[in-house]
């Protein structure tokens, strides 16, 4: 399935990656190439087949509901681009 520049723009917005307008056509061509190659999966008969969500045949293990770590704000903030008094400083979220 070929995708067009408008779709690329929408997908880029969903992925929160800015793509300049002059890149959209080239990207659409590139991505269409990949998607068309992928299309051959439609040839496979998968009626009645359960999707394989995990290669590990086990149920999600549970653990005791107790606190085992944490409480070290300095570690959490250690790589922050901006932080102050124990907070991450980020752009205004609520307009």
């Amino acid at each position, binding site marked *: 399935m070929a995708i067009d520049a408008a779709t690329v723009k929408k997908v880029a917005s969903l992925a*929160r990656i800015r793509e300049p307008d002059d890149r959209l056509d080239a990207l659409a061509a590139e*991505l269409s*190439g*990949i998607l068309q190659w992928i299309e051959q*999966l439609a040839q496979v008969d998968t009626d009645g087949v359960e*999707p394989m969500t*995990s*290669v590990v045949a086990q149920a999600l293990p549970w653990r005791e509901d107790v606190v085992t770590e944490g409480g070290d704000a300095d570690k959490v903030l250690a790589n922050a681009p901006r932080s102050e008094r124990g907070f991450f400083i980020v*752009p205004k979220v609520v307009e």
Partner: protein
Amino acid sequence: MSDLTKLTLKAALEGLKAKAFSSREITAAHIAAIEAARPLNAFVLETPDQALAMADAADARLAAGQGGPLEGAPLGIKDLFCTQGVRTTACSRILGDFKPTYESTVTSQLWRDGAVMLGKLNMDEFAMGSSNESSAFGPVTNPWRSRGSNQPLTPGGSSGGSATAVAADLCLGATATDTGGSIRQPAAFTGTVGIKPTYGRCSRWGIVAFASSLDQAGPIAKTVEDAAILLRSMSGHDAKDSTSLAVDTPDFPAYVGRSVKGLRIGVPREYRADGMPAEIDALWEQGVAWLRDAGCEIVEVSLPHTKYALPAYYIIAPAEASSNLARYDGMRYGLRAADARSLTDVYEATRAEGFGEEVKRRILIGTYVLSHGYYDAYYLKAQKVRRRIADDFDTAFQRVDALLTPTAPSAAFGLGENAADPVAMYLNDIFTVTVNLAGLPGLSLPAGLDAQGLPLGLQLIGRPLDEGTLFSLGGALEQAAGFSAKAERWW
């Protein structure tokens, strides 16, 4: 160059234990080798001071007779593993100068066993690639060159730095990861041994995630036995990784050298790809003959859905990547775009600046296939095809104990050769991705040289949790092949 760098891990460990040399000596020898090998660009971060400090600590433990299984051995660590206090970038700009405040489980086990860290190794950005050309730190150059040529070749990817460092004797072994072939293909391109264990054998905690249902850590080493020694230390159940299997770690090195008589080896007919080079086909036949001579029974098997593995992978992996890489938003760590104002602007600009082209391509594909209206046609379909692929292997393993295939459809190619067409690059993984989709263990070892003098690898695929059989078969093939060629030093 010091002879100490020419040792296998096994020989080095014996020498250290016997006090033939100290960890400081062998570590210093490797530090010097790394400095001299900078043209290869295998290391993105050298940690000589830390290495010598770790070596001294190892020497103290060895003197007290308290050495662990890797005591004093200098290793390289792929820059996808979080190393506490030591910059970890996944070879992307987006992580900036990130210094983890924690250690990955796999590397913590290496240090627990006494190993020494030489530095962080180059790789394709976020492990997405088959040539190590997408690294933010520039490509790695394969130590191997075609006969009579100076053309720089790729070491493969994504673990190109790991494979190069081992092949060029810059470390006794290296950690790597494999999502679609990223341990096995670079091992094949560099004449080294690499194993991707069963999914869940090694903990993924502290490894920067690419595709969570496919990623696995594993070693790249100089010999099959060396790989077994490393894998034993890297493996083990980890409560912090919910996909980690609660199983004991076998003594992998004990399997190397065991007789393989009576084992049934499957040769999957669908792996004879169109346009496969005659040399690779011939090597495969040779591998079959070696195993037959070692007493194995050879059985032709069919894995009918083989050709759908790559397209299924290129839906599932990007989809999972689009989710895993959503965390790189410039808020809590790594790069934050300087000029952006609003929240959305910061997100969009940071990710546009911080991610390379291949990573962006895969995030966009992943986002698209998971988006409303396309989820069923693409992602769900791919997961059903995945089950078919896994079932193919289940069926085959009712009649055989392991499979033998080539590792890669070519020898190492030139840097820049596959730049124009992403799909051409993806085809490098044609023999390896099936193994990740099915969660099985896969081992690659060097089996011969092509007409240009470049190494070619053979791949063994095993039942879940049966790395032992792969080490026995690998050992037998290694002995039969007698591959002792090393890259001629041009750096």
